[in-house]
């Protein structure tokens, strides 16, 4: 227990002190700035958390560099954005009935009617309380379960099991994200294949480059992911804006005055719904790929079923806003459970945390992080310690700081941002495109990054248009090198047995589960269409 405490204390101190023992408030400041930016971004139509994380990452890397010291400020900023954007998303949904994300649509169901009655500020206070509660609960679950899970995984899983687990995760994401699991799996595998362009394994040189020398170092990871996520969305947004303009669609805003107080009576009323939704969101967040939309839907639906007056849901009841916001916010912390314990991202925000970790410093995600190795002071050498574990606890500290800022200043800041929703998408998205192109060029130092962003943007646009989720593509792209390493290692270790994945009972179980999930969800999707 002393050893665990020692690591926790070192993790906390890592956030506030440099290696030389000097006070360092930069990581904490970065969490705060990230949170403020995240709330602004969340409150701006057309932008969301992963979007801002994507844009910030190249800028942060250009500014802080890629040394170990740069990791905590960068992660702190990204965590701040992640938390801020989650809570900020309620602003346009509640005040102007313009949800930035599918889960925010559920917030509009009761949030916007409250605004129409003049209770918009009260709805924002409820959204902030519920969102911060859900997020805090989810983070506590993360802090407690990730180390335990990771230790269990490290003991139980070897190369074949880890390979099978990645296959299971990808199948799971393909099954739950989008309308067609088979299509999801196909684009996931294409993502994996594209990630191999320009990679080098042996002395035979880079692979699959089409003879293009510039691809010899591989595709720039951040540019590719930014292309699919950000530029694809920019394409969609500009096209939609142009069509809306031609169709003459415009938003109408009707100001009204009403009771905007929020006190203990209101908290008592919504608290049971917040607890139920936080639990639902946390459980869903712990599973890779499901995301906030299902959590918000289930949270809202459960709250309606448990309510004494379910018929009032959708007419502007505080419980509706609370249930949705608590559910979607509690996904974010729990989503880091598979990231920290397995190195598998569960959502887009987690993707950018992984990208940051892979680009900066020598911190490694995965089960080995939580090895509580004995701390030994060796004279004239230094301290023998699992540095990754210290960084993991520093990460938890940054998340706790994010929650603290969110509770104390987030609500006030959130309510002052009604103005942001007035910025039109038509102005915003082309500017986002220019900033993205500039950022990737600055990070990768050449036009190759711009071409990659634009080509992957086209892929993202086409997938969105075909109604195929981009999540399996992005996750496949990121996990490909890891899966290749595991499969090659497992194959070699088995002495060249082509059925090595099926020889371990646990790996076999994961593969069977993957096939079952895809089969069952494909049948369900087929029935829905009929």
């Amino acid at each position, binding site marked *: 227990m002393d050893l665990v405490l020692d690591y926790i204390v070192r993790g906390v101190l890592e956030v506030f002190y440099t290696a030389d023992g000097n006070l360092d408030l930069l990581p904490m400041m970065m969490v705060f700035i990230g949170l403020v930016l995240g709330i602004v971004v969340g409150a701006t139509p057309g932008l969301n958390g992963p979007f801002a994380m994507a844009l910030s990452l190249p800028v942060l890397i250009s500014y802080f560099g890629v040394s170990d010291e740069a990791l905590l400020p960068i992660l702190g900023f990204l965590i701040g954005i992640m938390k801020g954007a989650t809570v900020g998303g309620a602003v346009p949904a509640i005040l102007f009935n313009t949800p930035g994300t599918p889960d925010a649509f559920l917030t509009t169901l009761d949030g916007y009617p409250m605004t129409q009655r003049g209770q918009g500020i009260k709805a924002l206070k409820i959204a902030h309380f519920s969102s911060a509660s859900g997020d805090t609960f989810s983070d506590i679950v993360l802090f407690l379960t990730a180390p335990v899970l990771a230790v269990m995984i490290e003991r139980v899983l070897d190369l074949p099991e880890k390979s099978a687990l990645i296959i299971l995760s990808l199948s799971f994401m393909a099954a739950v994200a989008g309308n067609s699991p088979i299509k999801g799996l196909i684009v996931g595998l294409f993502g994996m294949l594209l990630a*191999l362009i320009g990679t080098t394994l042996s002395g035979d040189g880079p692979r699959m480059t089409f003879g293009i020398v510039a691809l010899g170092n591989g595709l720039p990871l951040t540019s590719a992911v930014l292309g699919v996520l950000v530029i694809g969305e920019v394409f969609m947004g500009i096209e939609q804006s142009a069509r809306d303009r031609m169709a003459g669609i415009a938003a109408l805003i009707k100001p009204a005055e009403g009771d905007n107080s929020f006190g203990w009576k209101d908290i008592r009323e919504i608290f049971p719904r917040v607890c139920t939704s936080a639990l639902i969101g946390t459980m869903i967040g712990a599973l890779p790929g499901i995301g906030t939309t299902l959590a918000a839907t289930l949270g809202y639906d459960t709250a309606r079923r448990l309510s004494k007056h379910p018929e009032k849901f959708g007419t502007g009841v505080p419980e509706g806003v609370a249930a949705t916001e608590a559910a979607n916010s509690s996904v974010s912390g729990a989503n880091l459970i598979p990231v920290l314990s397995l190195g598998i991202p569960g959502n887009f925000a987690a993707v950018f945390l992984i990208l940051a970790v892979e680009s900066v410093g020598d911190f490694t995600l995965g089960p080995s992080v939580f090895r509580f190795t004995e701390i030994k002071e060796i004279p004239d050498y230094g301290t023998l310690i699992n540095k990754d574990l210290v960084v993991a606890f520093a990460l938890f500290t940054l998340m706790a700081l994010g929650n603290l800022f969110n509770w104390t200043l987030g609500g006030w800041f959130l309510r002052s941002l009604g103005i942001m929703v007035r910025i039109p*998408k038509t102005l915003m998205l082309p500017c986002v495109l220019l900033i993205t192109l500039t950022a990737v060029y600055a990070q990768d*130092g050449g*036009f190759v990054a711009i071409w990659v962003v634009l080509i992957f943007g086209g892929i993202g646009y086409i997938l*969105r248009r075909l109604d195929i989720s981009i999540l399996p593509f992005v996750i496949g792209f990121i996990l490909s090198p890891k899966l290749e390493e595991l499969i090659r290692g497992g194959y070699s270790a088995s002495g060249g047995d082509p059925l090595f994945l099926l020889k371990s009972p646990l790996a076999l179980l994961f593969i069977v589960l993957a096939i079952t999930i895809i089969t069952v969800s494909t049948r369900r999707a087929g029935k829905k269409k009929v």
Partner: protein
Amino acid sequence: MPNLTDHQRPVPNPWNIGFGIVALAAALLTLLVWIPFDIKGGVIEANVLGKLEPGDAFFPALLAGALVVLSLIQVISAVIDRTVPDPDAASGKLTTDNLLFLCLFYAIVLIGLTVMYWLGPLTTEALKAVGLIELGYRQLLDTPPYKYIGYIVGGFGMTLGLITWAEGVTRPRAILTVVIVISVSILIFDILLNNVLLPPNADF
């Protein structure tokens, strides 16, 4: 049996079949052309001890093989599945309008990027030709205004072009917004960050 019009009769979704066929073709091309011609190593190779080990093509071939199987499943299931077509559905298909939009979008962006890339070097060459400067663009990469000229003009044209296209009109607020964004970008990427270059300067 009720009488169904052509629009109400369940039929296979051509977009689902098409997606499967395109994916199958891409997977077969990868397996039979791309991997053999663009990866020097084999699928399985013997190491110096004679032990069989996975080669450079092992994992790509495994992925492409899995893609062939999944694409076939997609084609077969899409042929079997029958749904009532919804002619008004906005998603799940790529229309000619969508492709036209994509082409126009890329055209505006590519024109902007071409100006961004070439304007600086062409300007310095022109000034050099008339004897106003002695150095070329490469030597002036860190000298204002030459280092900004391509980024400002190309970036301004591209961004304002897209805004005008989306809004249908060029408003002063759009011009002001683009000017602010470009100024902030220069401030961040050129003045605050010392170790990075604005486009296109890293390419020269």
